């Protein structure tokens, strides 16, 4: 089982050119993601932004509010027009008391494909296995479904088998 990567696919009912701009124009990216960049995305150049609430969703904006102004660092990796946009960051770097800069990063890749009725976007984030276990343990917000439930099932099963 992979603990190293996440993959998401979503059909966006918008032309590829529109999606591409929303991803690679750093100002547009910031508006939906919830971060403010003063400079454009340039491959291999570290870029520091500051978190700010998204314009897109009021509920989410409320949740993002406490993190407003916090530094947000990425390094853009690849920009292949209308096909691939990728960058690296420190995942879940939410603790202001921690200096994450010397720790491994994960790679985020956005891949665009033409699809009936719009654009198919695939997002992958990979490299989690290199992230120190204590960092991973910090991010909980217990997911009652998923793995926690699997472990309880196994425990129950073992209790019977023993």
């Amino acid at each position, binding site marked *: *089982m992979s*603990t190293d990567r996440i993959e998401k696919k979503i059909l966006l009912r918008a032309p590829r050119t529109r999606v591409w701009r929303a991803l690679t124009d750093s100002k547009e990216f910031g508006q939906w993601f919830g971060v403010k960049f003063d400079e454009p995305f340039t491959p291999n150049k570290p870029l520091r932004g500051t978190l700010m609430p*998204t314009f897109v969703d009021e509920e989410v904006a409320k949740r993002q509010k406490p993190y407003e102004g916090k530094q947000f660092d990425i390094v853009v990796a690849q920009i292949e027009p209308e096909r691939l946009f990728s960058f690296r960051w420190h995942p879940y770097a939410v603790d202001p008391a921690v200096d994450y800069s010397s720790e491994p990063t994960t790679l985020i890749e956005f891949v665009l494909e033409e699809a009936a009725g719009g654009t198919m976007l695939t997002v992958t984030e990979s490299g989690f296995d290199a992230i120190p276990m204590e960092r991973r343990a910090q991010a909980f917000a217990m997911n009652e479904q998923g793995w926690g439930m699997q472990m309880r099932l196994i425990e129950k099963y073992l209790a019977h088998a023993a």
Partner: protein
Amino acid sequence: MPRSSRGQRALRGSAPVFAALGDETRLAIVARLSAGGPRSISGLTEGTSVTRQAVTKHLHVLAGAGLVRGVRRGRERIWELEARRLEEARRYLAEISQGWDDALERLKKFVED
């Protein structure tokens, strides 16, 4: 990204765990490690008719599914359950995964409006 599919994905991801546990000897090994804590191969074969070689083979299958891990101590290897660490890794990924679901919903609104 519909939320109902998350549980299904988690189930699929857990398949190797269930496959690894779908063997009586391996289940017995996990039960022993669970009840008695970390132990060596000798500690695991003690009082059973299973050979050292067989236990070693089963331990590697369990390790491959991320259920146990072996730590070298002196001349032998001590085997322990990995469940907690794995659960943490899973939870972390679930959290980040949810973050992406939310972010992509916002992107969708942004480009479709």
